[in-house]
């Protein structure tokens, strides 16, 4: 009897990218990241939502996981760099990251948290939107991010030394958090910061085209729309339309939705609830799309 698994599951540290993620470098971020990785300097990504931070880290983990000289194409002849992504939220505690004891029958068993796993496996640990996490978690990463490169596991009385390939990467969106949620300087100053922004129009158009499968003209118009809508930031819009939203719009268009409608649902209504701003964006959309 054969059962076919309907889903794929990975053990955290075994998850690595097998196909090259699509990423178009805008500046020298690839070189910077490579250098930081080799020098074992933790990296902080700054930039608005949906501009490609996560995609970049995926891309880099794939890229760094590959041997520099491609000896054997077929059998992924490298050591595959695991990528552990943790989305931070308000209730994310230190034990969520490090691990906890669980009851199993009469006994308790220790389960490693994702951070511990990444430290052990020597992968890239990517903490997305770090400021959302509780303050104690940010302190937890301190010893990991300086010369010590150790993770104290208090409950077990252990100190874990990070494996060679381990790198901590944080992402941080300085724009929309309140002042309360700013990153502490003692934390910030442990990282090199790479700033991300939405790519310039031609690159963004290319990205949209590739990701959404929309034709070139549509991709160009979407990129133009993105640029125009971002001009409204601070004029009623908290955050401009992200590349991700542009791609969504592009995908809807590829699926046969009329462009104006696609932009309305994917971009306009996604970025704002303010009616007058919506009407303005509506006009921009109708100017750009037929």
């Amino acid at each position, binding site marked *: 009897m054969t059962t076919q698994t309907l889903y794929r599951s990975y053990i955290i540290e075994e998850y690595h990218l097998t196909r090259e993620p699509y990423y178009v470098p805008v500046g020298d971020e690839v070189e910077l990241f490579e250098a930081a990785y080799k020098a074992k300097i933790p990296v902080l990504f700054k930039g608005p939502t949906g501009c490609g931070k996560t995609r970049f880290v995926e891309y880099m983990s794939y890229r760094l996981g590959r041997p520099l000289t491609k000896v054997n194409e077929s059998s992924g002849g490298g050591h595959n760099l695991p990528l552990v992504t943790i989305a931070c939220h308000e209730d994310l505690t230190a034990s969520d990251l490090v691990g906890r004891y669980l009851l199993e029958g009469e006994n308790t068993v220790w389960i490693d948290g994702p951070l511990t796993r990444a430290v052990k496996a020597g992968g890239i640990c990517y903490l997305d939107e770090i400021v959302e996490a509780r303050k104690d978690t940010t302190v937890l990463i301190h010893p990991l991010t300086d010369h010590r490169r150790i993770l104290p596991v208090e409950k077990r009385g252990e100190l874990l030394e990070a494996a060679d390939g381990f790198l901590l990467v944080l992402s941080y969106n300085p724009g929309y958090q309140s002042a309360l949620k700013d990153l502490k300087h003692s934390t910030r100053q442990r990282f090199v910061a790479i700033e991300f922004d939405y790519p310039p129009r031609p690159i963004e158009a290319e990205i949209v085209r590739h990701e959404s499968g929309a034709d070139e003209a549509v991709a160009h118009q979407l990129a133009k729309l993105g640029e125009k*809508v971002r*001009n409204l930031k601070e004029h009623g819009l908290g955050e401009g339309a992200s590349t991700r939203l542009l791609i969504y719009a592009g995908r809807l268009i590829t699926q046969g939705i009329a462009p104006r409608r696609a932009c309305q649902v994917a971009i306009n209504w996604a970025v704002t609830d303010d009616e*007058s701003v919506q*009407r303005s964006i509506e*006009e921009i959309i109708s*100017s750009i799309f037929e």
Partner: protein
Amino acid sequence: MAEESPRSLAYLREEMGRFPAALAAEFQRALDRMPDSITEAQTVVWAGVGVEIAAQTVRSWEAASQYYAVSPSVVVCMPFRYFARWAECGSSLCRESPTLAAAFFEASPGTMARLRSRHIESWAGLGRSLYKGTWKSSTLACKFFAASPDLVESLTFPQLERFVSFLAALSHRSSDLSLECLGLGRQIFPLMGDDKDAFIGLASTLVETNWREVKTFFDAGARALPRIDPGQRMHFLRLARRLVGAGNANVPMLMLDMSQSLFQIERKHHAAILALAESLVEVSPAAVPEFVKGTPLVLDKISLNQIQAWFDQGVTILRQNPDGGMAYFKMESARAEEALESISSRIEFERVKDVMEMYCRALAGADVKLAVTDDLVEKNIGWVSNESPSTEGSTVYVPTVVDRYLTKNENFEWLKVVSTHQTAHLEFDSFGFRFDAPSRLFDDARHTVEERKKKLAEEASDDRSLPRQDYATDAQRFFNLFEDRKLALDIFTVVEDGRLDSRVKTEYWGIRRPYARVQLHSLSERPSVKDLPAREALVEFLVRLSLQQHRGLPAPKPYLREARRIARIAGKVLSPRAAVEDVAEATLRIYAIISRIPNEKLAPEEWEDVDVDESGEEYEDAEGMDQLLRQMGQGLDMDLRPGDEEEFESSQEVGFRGDFKPELVQLLAQLRVQEEQGGQEGGEPISQEALEELLKNSAELDLEAVQGEVQNAAGFANNILQEAGASLPDAAQSGQGPPAHVHEDGGELEPDEPQTFVYDEWDFRADDYKPRWCVVRQKTMMEGDPAFYGATLHSYGALVGKVRRQFELMAPETFRKVRKLEDGEEIDIDDVVEAMVDIKTGVSPSDKLYWRRNKVQRDVSVAFLLDTSASTAEAIDEGRRAPEDWGAPDDPVEYMAWLRTRRGEAVKRSYKRIIDVEKEAIVLLINALEAIGDVYGIYGFSGYGRENVEFYTIKDLDENLSDRVKRRIDRVAPLHATRMGPAIRHATTKLAEQDARTKLLFLISDGRPQDRGYSREGVEKEYAVHDTKMALDEARHQDINAFCLTVDKNGHDYLKTMCEDIGYEVLDDINVLPERLLQLYRRLTM
């Protein structure tokens, strides 16, 4: 009279001798004038009647003499048979009253000329019918005769009869009135057409229903009717009559009002409006005048065809809710405004400003503002047209109203196209022209031409020591290359606008279609090319080309080659790669070609239609071009023209493209930069002289056409410098004069001073808001004696301490323990036990074993609204009268006097007033609130009338407790009336700005809301109560908890309505207010 033996003339003369000599003399004069056709016998008869009349009474000889005097002119009007009857009529009238007869005779010549002979007796009878034997009635009858010539002229006889019977009927009521109406009738009947019947009929109706109005009716008729389209006057009167019939009061006034409104709209619309009004009578007669009065305003916004829809909607509302319908037609309802807005096809700037401003910002990627053209013109810095959209580099100016097309959509699209075009100037950098920047599509010729010119200038003037820079901006430097700046600017404008249009269309596909439509429309408005002289024709040729006319462009035959050449040059900048520098190069070349063409009229056969390739075909400078440019460099561009050519007129502006003034805009930008940098960096500053020089030479400025007193370059320069420097807002113009008195029935209000706010008011009868109805004037309470605060605390001694402790206790209570967490401060032993039990019994345990103390931060903002109306001056001990009885006069002047005496009284009082207790309560409250650290504001409100709602700040929400606040409390005093709604709305606005989790609005009052025009029409207190309720509901929708505390014992009845879903409490004993207030507050915020 001929029955008696014919007396001889001599005998009659003898008879006359018995009377005063004047009679005989008059007779003799008349006899001489009698026509020859009268026989002797007839003469005797005629003379005999006179003697007969004279003999009747003592004074009747006067009538007789009058009889003789008029006879010659009467006798020619009719056969003698009738003449005799006329005389007989007079004679019999004289038996009634000689005066009457005299008046009859006097009026006869004028009347007989127009009256049918057979009506003579009836006419005399009419006069007699008015005569009742009294002195007054005699006057009336005489006046009637005197007026007869005019009346007969304007009325038919049956009408006259009806008019007289109206007069007779009226004279029963008042002879004087009747007399006046007679006079007025004489004046106004000539003004009327076929509608006299209606008018007289209406007047007769009025005599029966409301005779006192008759005179005003005539008055109104005299003034109203001329304002109305002659053909529609009858309709108007019929309408008025139906209004009378429907029981409307004071119809004459309504007629005047309605006619005034009709006068404001075009006469050809009267018929339609009156027809609508008449159909409205059946639904609601009372709404008719309001509808008619509103029409000028409505027609201002929508067309006559659309008014039906607007009207129908009003009628629908009227049927459902008469008050709502009235408010609708009065335009005192938000629904009416919405209906108008949705029907109207025009676009009002104010309504789309925010949307379009953001649109422009997005496109330009800069902080662009949007304003109306009037603002730009007002600045008097060179722009003169209120109609033309434009931009001065940071603001896009568009017309106030767009009403060019039939549908709203088209109008909006026009505005969008216009805004897009103006924004394109910014987005595609029209004003960023740099003389030194290379062009992309042409070989640069600017420098060559400039150098040649310079050399030429140097040769001309031997003075080599002035290599001074003679331009302030790059645009000016560029235009300096041209001898004929006007032509150069025209070409530059067309080519640049063409570039932008084409660029917009390639960048923004969505707007292509409306854009093309607007272009096409502009094209249709262009002047005919063939009427223009040659050079202008070629500029026009370019304009049309830029508006996408490629086929059948008329061009002068002698210059076909030139036309094709400039078309190719202009076509080149349509490429998306083209920048403003390319436009400059193109301008240079086109100018070189066109400027030498003589501006002469051409015969009709000297034209040929040209087709131009749409695809900007490759243009390369031909050899000739170099030659042309060289000539330009030598300043020969004007010299080659014939002297007798026509003066060059700038081409007519393309409406949607508006004004384009690159030199001025660059100048402004430069001056602004200079201003910001304090004139130190960024090159040498522009001097006043340089500025004037620029302005004098610039073709963009038409010094003649600018309004205002400043007509020279120097004045202009000042304005411009001011504009560049003073982009900061002007000093606040605070004219703190007394607010103008606004009538309750007036329209919307606008905030006129700083610190004034306008709010809507709820009209429950109309079930709709009255838009912008109340003005709240926010003031800071004056400061008084600081001792009051301390004294109050002292007098409440024990209570103060207790309250403070209670409030301090509130703070720690706000920690809350949260159980059953996966992670927390500590393990909850109960849960662990439970989990162990689960494990033992083999059930999988919950892992939620922790608890944590969540610190719930107390986050309260509260606004206390204190009623400081005059009624709070009531003494507490006095049995409190119902507030309705306080009897404030309605007239403002009387009211103030009344108020002064009341307040005067209050000073003398030694007992406590309500307000005093309120003040004490505040002191205690502040003391308590300081203990728990809530954000709180204390405000007093009062006011008189909707234009003057006073809102006093005692302590603002963001303000800290200070001695000033303490001093202000002392000055809280009873003021005027209680208009709660706006005060609540204002407090709500303030609270809404607060960033607190719990927001409270505490209303402390002493009675029902009331104000002039608020508790309308005496009994209808409901209005105020409902508005207050609505204001409280609005607060609730903004997550503000409201609570009303009143000391009015009768408060329950209205508070039930007012605070339907809101907490309220009625205090029986005002003295417990301070304590109770604190208790309530604690309870509400826990």
